[in-house]
C-alpha cells in the first residue's frame, strides 16, 4: 500500500513541476523545439544534472537503497523510436506524460493527444510481433551506461556530464530572441 501512495505523490509533484515550467504547454514546447526559447530544455538538463549527481553520490554511501533500472541500448530501435517520437513531439507539442498534466489543467487538445496515444499503443500492440520485435533485437548493446564504455568511476562520470550540462545552461541564452 505504501508504494502506490508514494507513487501517486511523486506523480502529483512531477505534474505540478511540469505545469509550473509550462512544459505541458504545446506552444511553449514548440518554441523550445524551434530554439526560440530554451527554458524547458534547460529545465530538463538541470533535472538530469541534479539527478545524476544525487544518485551517484548516494551510490558511494548507500548503494543498497537505489533501484536502478537501465534500459537496453538496442541502437536501431532506440534511435528509430526517438526519430518517430520527435516528429510527433514537433507536430503535437506533447509528451506521453505532459498531455496527462494538460488534461489536469483543462486543456482540450491534451484529450486529443491522449486519444492519439492510446490509438498508437493499440496499433503498436497489433504490429509488435511481426514488425517491431525483429528490429528491437538488432544491434543490442545491452543495459550499458556511459561509464561501462569510458572506463572511469560512475561518480566521476556523473560529475563530468553534469558539468557539461550546467555549462550549457549557464552559457546558452534562455530567451534566444532577446539575446
Amino acid at each position: 500500500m505504501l508504494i502506490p501512495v508514494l507513487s501517486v505523490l511523486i506523480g502529483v509533484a512531477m505534474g505540478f513541476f511540469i505545469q509550473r515550467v509550462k512544459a505541458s504547454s504545446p506552444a511553449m514546447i514548440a518554441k523550445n523545439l524551434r530554439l526560440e526559447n530554451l527554458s524547458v530544455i534547460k529545465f530538463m538538463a538541470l533535472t538530469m544534472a541534479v539527478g545524476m549527481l544525487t544518485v551517484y553520490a548516494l551510490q558511494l554511501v548507500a548503494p543498497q537503497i537505489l533501484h536502478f533500472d537501465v534500459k537496453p541500448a538496442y541502437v536501431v530501435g532506440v534511435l528509430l523510436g526517438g526519430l518517430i517520437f520527435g516528429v510527433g513531439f514537433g507536430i503535437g507539442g506533447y509528451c506521453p506524460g505532459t498531455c496527462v498534466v494538460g488534461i489536469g489543467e483543462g486543456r482540450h487538445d491534451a484529450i486529443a493527444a491522449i486519444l492519439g496515444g492510446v490509438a498508437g499503443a493499440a496499433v503498436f500492440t497489433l504490429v509488435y510481433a511481426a514488425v517491431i520485435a525483429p528490429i528491437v533485437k538488432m544491434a543490442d548493446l545491452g543495459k550499458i551506461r556511459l561509464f561501462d564504455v569510458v572506463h572511469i568511476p560512475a561518480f566521476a562520470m556523473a560529475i563530468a556530464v553534469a558539468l557539461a550540462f550546467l555549462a550549457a545552461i549557464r552559457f546558452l541564452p534562455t530567451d534566444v530572441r532577446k539575446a
Partner: protein
Amino acid sequence: MSYSATAPGAAATAPRRAADDAPVAIPVAPRTPWALYGVLFGLLGAISIIVWGPIGVSGTYPRFIGWIATLVDPAYAEANPYLKKMGSLFKPESFLVIGLLIGGFLGARLNRERAPKCEMAHPGETTKARRLRDAFIGGFLIVFGARVAGGCTSGHIISGITQLSVSGFIFAIGVFATGILSAKMLSRRAAAGA
C-alpha cells in the same frame, strides 16, 4: 469549425464564437521558475529511484490497452506477446500517471491561472479542428515511437540520462533531431502560406 479565425471578415461576422473556439496564440514565451523546479525535479527523480525505480510514463499506455483487452477478449490478451511482456496495469507507473493528472490540476489551480483550453503551437493551427488534429497525430507518434524505443521523455531521457544510460542519450539525439526539424518546418510552411 468551417470558418478560419484569421480570414477577413470572420471576426466581424462571428465575433464571440470565433474568439472562443480558435486556438490561442502565445507570441512571447512566458518566464518560468525553471531553475527552481529543475533542481526539485532532479531530487524527485532520485527519490523515485529510492522508492521503486526510475520514473516512466509511456509503458502505461500499452498496459492500459492490455487491461481493456483482458476485459473484452481475455484469450487475445493472453496470446499477445507484447501485452504479456508489459504485464498488469497495477504498477507504480500507473499510479504515477494518476498523480500527473492531479498535479496538473493543482499546479494551475494554486496559481489561480486558467490554461487556455486550446493553444496554437504552430501558426497553421488557425482553427480548433486543426489544433486537435495535430494533437492527435502527435499523440499517436509519440506513444508509438516511445514503445519502439522502450521509453519516452521521462523513462529514456530524464531517468535514462540521470542513470547515464547509453540508450537515453541515443533516444534524446533522435527526438531532438526530428523534433527541431518538424517544429521549424511547420512554422515555415505556415509562414509561406501553405
